[in-house]
């Protein structure tokens, strides 16, 4: 066999070799979050909710954006995590925040693994319906098992001890919650970023782009999908768990269709399969929802509806997709790169 010559100078090889390196603008979300913390101390409740949505959307991005698993039931994992924290704390079994999150991740991962193992044999509409029904079944189970879950009313006023035994969770001025969520989000993001740029992540994009071909290059596609789905579920579980801790509260809203649809909208709005779509989408959606619904509540729904229609019709790559296209217009030297396409049908 011939010796592979080293071609360090080819621009394509260099681009791929440097693809994972940090860029200056990647620090912007974190700077913005910290700036928000100091600039808007009265909006931290909203900010915390926003950060949790970003984390949840990132977990979905891994499954949907990278591996092309189109699911309508992702809130099942968010809820699994939230209820893990809630049930353990409410019944006085366990309430330390950090280990609580680990348990939330574990339980959500178990739900993801088991459901993934069974459901990922199917694709398309069937998979969509199966994930949806599984989530709704869990929601109904949580509703019926009120002895443990508090049913429709949920588990109120959870007793969550201070973070590291020091920092109290104040419900009115949620400074601790905000920074705690920000920290967890940062760690989870680093993890997802690492996955996304790894050969494993590259393989996931392969599954998304052409499952049949992935089989033909010898990838154990289903195993990969189940692994990805499980990891994604675990992160969604962390998002749910931290939501329960930050709010000291769990209820059915954590695993309903509303939440599943919202996170999907957020991700697609921002642009999926791009790591930062979750940030852009969550900020755009939540800020718009927050302020528009203050001005004129029904207008918010109308505005959101029209926005979704326009995005679906004209801006398939979401807001980041639009940004990329604009950037290319400005820098025509670089060979045109299509906005990352959707999972092929």
């Amino acid at each position, binding site marked *: 066999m011939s010796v592979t010559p080293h071609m360090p100078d080819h621009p394509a090889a260099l681009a*791929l070799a440097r*693809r994972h390196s940090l860029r200056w603008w990647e620090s912007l979300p974190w700077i913005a979050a910290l700036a928000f913390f100091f600039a808007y101390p009265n909006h931290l409740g909203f900010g915390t909710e926003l950060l949790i949505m970003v984390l949840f959307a990132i977990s979905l991005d891994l499954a949907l954006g990278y591996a092309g698993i189109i699911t309508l039931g992702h809130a099942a994992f968010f809820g699994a995590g939230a209820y893990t924290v809630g049930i353990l704390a409410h019944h006085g079994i366990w309430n330390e925040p950090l280990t609580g999150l680990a348990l939330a991740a574990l339980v959500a991962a178990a739900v993801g693994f088991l459901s993934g193992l069974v459901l990922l044999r199917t694709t398309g509409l069937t998979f969509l319906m199966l994930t949806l029904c599984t989530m709704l079944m869990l929601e109904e189970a949580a509703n019926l098992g009120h002895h443990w879950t508090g049913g429709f009313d949920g588990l109120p006023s959870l007793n969550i001890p201070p973070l590291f035994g020091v920092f109290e969770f104040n419900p009115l001025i949620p400074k601790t919650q905000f920074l705690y969520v920000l920290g967890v989000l940062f760690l989870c993001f680093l993890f997802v970023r690492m996955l996304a740029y*790894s*050969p494993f992540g*590259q393989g996931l994009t392969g599954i998304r782009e*052409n499952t049949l071909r992935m089989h033909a290059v*010898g990838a154990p596609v289903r195993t990969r999908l189940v692994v990805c789905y499980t990891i994604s579920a675990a992160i969604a579980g962390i998002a749910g768990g931290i939501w329960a801790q930050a709010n000291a509260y769990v209820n059915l809203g954590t695993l309903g269709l509303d939440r599943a649809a919202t996170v999907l909208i957020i991700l697609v709005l921002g642009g999926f399969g791009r790591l930062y779509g979750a940030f852009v989408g969550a900020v755009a959606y939540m800020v718009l929802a927050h302020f528009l619904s203050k001005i004129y509540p029904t207008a918010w729904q109308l505005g959101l509806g029209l926005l979704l229609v326009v995005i679906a019709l004209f801006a398939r790559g979401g807001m980041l997709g639009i940004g990329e296209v604009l950037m290319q217009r400005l820098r025509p030297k670089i060979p045109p790169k299509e906005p990352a396409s959707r999972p092929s049908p």
Partner: protein
Amino acid sequence: MNGTLLETRSVSKNFGALQAARDITFTLEKGARHALIGPNGAGKTTFINLMTGVLLPTTGTVLLRGEDITTMEQAARVKRGIARTFQINRLFRGLTVLENVYISVAERVGAATNMVTPAGKRRDVIDEAMHLLETLKLADDAQRTIAGLPYGRQRLVELAIALGLKPEVLLLDEPAAGVPSAESHIILDAIDALPKDIGVLIIDHDMDLVFRFAKRITVLVRGAIFAEGTPREIGSNADVRAVYLGQATTHGA
């Protein structure tokens, strides 16, 4: 260089009442340049799917170097050295050409399960993929996404992905189909340049390509082997001419 690589014994495949493959016994030797021809709907692609594990035979056995792989999963067969291309492009359309080949090479060298190291740090994988693109004269397109590539170039990527697996058995399903004639020589050159020791089975309608390439030809008609022999034997076989070649030549003319 001699020895049987891939072998099927009395393989049949039924889809309900339809018999897509009937009693096919076939061998592919090491270093072979074998062609599989036959009219439309003869079951050629079905036969490839049976060998690669996309489909499982209703009856019969498939052997690789003597090992029974009849019920083995597709992925495991690929690991054992069987690779294929598709009649209709099956590429990672949203990714760059280099990434397409990277995926294939990464699978082969076992890098693909790595979740920790950035893909870019596996320079060995990148370099091998780049090298492959060089040999197929695709290096200039390495950074372009598939969707923006002319069809002929896409066919080359199709081949590059399969070669990234360093197969011992390579099954090419109409490699030049849909390629403008001005560009088809690139495909032909690439096929000519394949490593000598691998066994290649090519399916095609293009008789020029088949006769230029093949040392041996199998004719498939209605799911069964109709004739097999050297190009000369097949070319002079009256029956084959009757059912197939005549028809094809008039088409070609």
